[in-house]
């Protein structure tokens, strides 16, 4: 019973990833694409959690943490890049900002 419901939620999550993928390909501005990449990462995290539960194992829970951290760092780096043109700045040079 629970396995059928979990499979259904996997299908729904895949649909969500597909919708985000549409916005990622089409999005008129860069910020649209970044927002949809962020949403794709978050949805992937939920997919991995549901897979953990389907296989009744804790082996993939580390993957959840890694995907979360990578999504956050990627979104931050992209947002800084489209805002300033640089990702890391030295702190003392003013014209790089």
């Amino acid at each position: 019973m629970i396995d059928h419901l979990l499979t259904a939620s996997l299908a729904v999550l895949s649909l969500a990833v597909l919708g985000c993928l549409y916005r990622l390909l089409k999005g008129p501005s860069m910020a649209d694409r970044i927002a949809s990449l962020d949403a794709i990462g978050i949805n992937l995290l939920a997919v991995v959690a549901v897979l953990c539960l389907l296989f009744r194992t804790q082996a993939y829970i580390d993957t959840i943490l890694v995907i979360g951290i990578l999504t956050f760092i990627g979104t931050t780096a992209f947002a800084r890049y489209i805002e300033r043109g640089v990702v890391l700045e030295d702190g003392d040079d003013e014209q790089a900002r």
Partner: protein
Amino acid sequence: METMSKLGELSIALLILIGALFCALSAFGLIRLPDVYLRSHAATKSATLGVLCVLAGVFLYFMFFLDQVSVKLLLGIAFVFITSPIAGHLNGRAAYRQGVPLWDKSVRDDLQSALTEETQTGTQTLRPPPNEPESK
């Protein structure tokens, strides 16, 4: 006892399904809404709620039915809960400062007047004032 555990399993699976439906709803908003800012509203808030529902369901199932309390899963829940709104905010700020236009039916833009005031008082626009460095 048998029915109780069946009911518990069913309610946890329903929690996970509801979370997945919230994620699908956020993808729908991401497709249909007209503007970067409205879209990031959909993508940030409801996706976070959906993922939190899914992760909480998985955590509860591991705790009640497999007798494993997964601290890593709790850490993941806290991490997503903290970082996802921050990422959405950063993305919206970057979009505004890059000059992405608002939807043409938007009626109000408070940040615009704040930024022009900043320009009139002599500090450079699109940038924090120099006496308050943004990161120390």
